[in-house]
């Protein structure tokens, strides 16, 4: 240390505080004048301290977990009791289910029931659609190489999601039921009345063309109908909800805004060919069907 007299040292020690105060005022002004510099200094300090903070927060989460574990341990016997009661209840239901299944089997055997084919399905991951003509469509990573075909039906975890419209070798585009191009024949479950579910690019597709004496009831389940032969009947879609009086919509069970996985089912619907009925004239011929209505819309003599 530099040898200085006691007087000088005392004078210096008295000066320290005012000098430091002035310095802090200077730092305040400098920090206000050059904010990026201050922010850089902050970031550097934060960088150095980050491991300590990490340690602290990890300790905290660990101790919270420990406390939580202890709390759970205290409730363990209670939880055990509840679970064993529930288990007994479920066992009872299991017995009921088994006996019902056996009874069902027996009845089907009595009736010489033709068993329905089990549908084959593949599951794929949904990736966002990058393009296409539809507003509400998703791309699935599963294509013809995994057996997906146009017209297959895509189901989310708990309801119908859409239909396969285009298939590539490793990807399939699925038109969601909310798209404006989607029109599905549906059935109202409690009344068995049919209707058409029309997408309008909103999350809630509308119900149209239901018969006026069996109106959809709020909360009623909506399932697919096999009217046009595109869908097997009874696949759950959603429930009826009235946005306004006289304007029923369907709240889909599937969470169509955040799809991650879809199962694509091949119900083999196209293989069911109705037998030829003698004397029955087919209504539509594949090539002339489109041209006819437009011609009839024009007046006679206006063609060409």
């Amino acid at each position, binding site marked *: 240390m530099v040898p200085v007299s006691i007087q000088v040292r*005392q004078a210096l*020690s*008295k000066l*320290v*505080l005012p000098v*430091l*105060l002035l*310095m*802090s*005022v*200077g*730092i*305040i*002004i*400098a*920090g*206000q004048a050059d904010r990026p510099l*201050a922010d850089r*200094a*902050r970031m550097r*300090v*934060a960088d150095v*301290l980050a491991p*300590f*903070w990490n340690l*602290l*927060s990890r300790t*905290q989460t660990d101790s919270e977990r420990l406390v939580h574990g202890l709390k759970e341990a205290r409730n363990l016997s209670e939880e055990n009791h509840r679970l064993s009661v529930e288990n007994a209840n479920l066992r009872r239901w299991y017995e009921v289910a088994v006996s019902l299944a056996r009874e069902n089997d027996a009845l089907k055997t009595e009736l010489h029931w033709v068993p329905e084919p089990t549908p084959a399905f593949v599951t794929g991951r949904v990736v966002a659609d990058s393009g296409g003509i539809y507003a509400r469509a998703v791309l699935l990573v599963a294509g013809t190489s995994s057996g997906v075909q146009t017209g297959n039906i895509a189901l989310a975890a708990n309801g119908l999601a859409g239909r396969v419209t285009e298939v590539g070798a490793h990807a399939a585009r699925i038109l969601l039921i909310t798209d404006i191009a989607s029109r599905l024949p549906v059935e109202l479950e409690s009344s068995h009345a049919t209707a058409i579910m029309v997408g309008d690019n909103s999350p809630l597709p509308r119900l149209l063309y239901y018969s006026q004496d069996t109106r959809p009831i709020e909360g009623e389940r909506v399932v697919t109908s096999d009217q046009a032969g595109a869908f097997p009947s009874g696949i759950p879609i959603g429930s009826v909800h009235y946005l306004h009086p006289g304007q029923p919509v369907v709240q889909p069970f599937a969470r169509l805004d955040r799809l991650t996985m879809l199962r694509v089912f091949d119900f083999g619907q196209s293989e069911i060919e109705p037998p030829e009925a003698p004397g029955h004239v087919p209504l539509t011929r594949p090539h002339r069907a489109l041209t006819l209505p437009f011609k009839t819309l024009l007046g006679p003599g206006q063609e060409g």
Partner: protein
Amino acid sequence: MSDPHQPRWDHNAETQLTSRQRLDRTARHLLPSVFTALVIIFFSAPVTIPGAAELLPAIVINTIFFWSVWRPSGMPSLAVFLLGLFMDLVGFTPLGVSAFILLLVHGIGNYARFGLMRLNFLLVWCLFGLVGAAAAALQWALACLFRLHLLDPAPAFFEALLCIGVYPLLSATFSWFLHILDEKDTP
């Protein structure tokens, strides 16, 4: 205002100290600063302590005031300045504001220490309450000044109340600590 700790030092001539004693003394002098730095690191960590943003300045002001009054050798001005700067860098106050406020608190404590030492605990607490409230108000005023619009004064009130409320607890702890240190010092 001469250095009050000078007599205690002088009769231990520095040349006669062993390295162990010197280390011990250094540690003793650094202890309050290190404690404050650790408190700052702890409270600026992303741990969910209710009122951490207000509790930190309260504890730091308490610590600095206490040591400035009772043992200034443990809390030199430079350490106060560095601690304030560290607090600013770690927190979100404008750079230098905490340093300024803490230096003011330190200066007041240092200046009034001989008067304060003679008073009883409750009076010291009352006077410290004034200092703490003034510090919180000054911080609020400076923050308003730099943001150029009137901020909600509720956090400043909360901080002042915490500052006053924490004092007995910290004061008792530090006094006990000083007692232990002094006992060890005089065998």
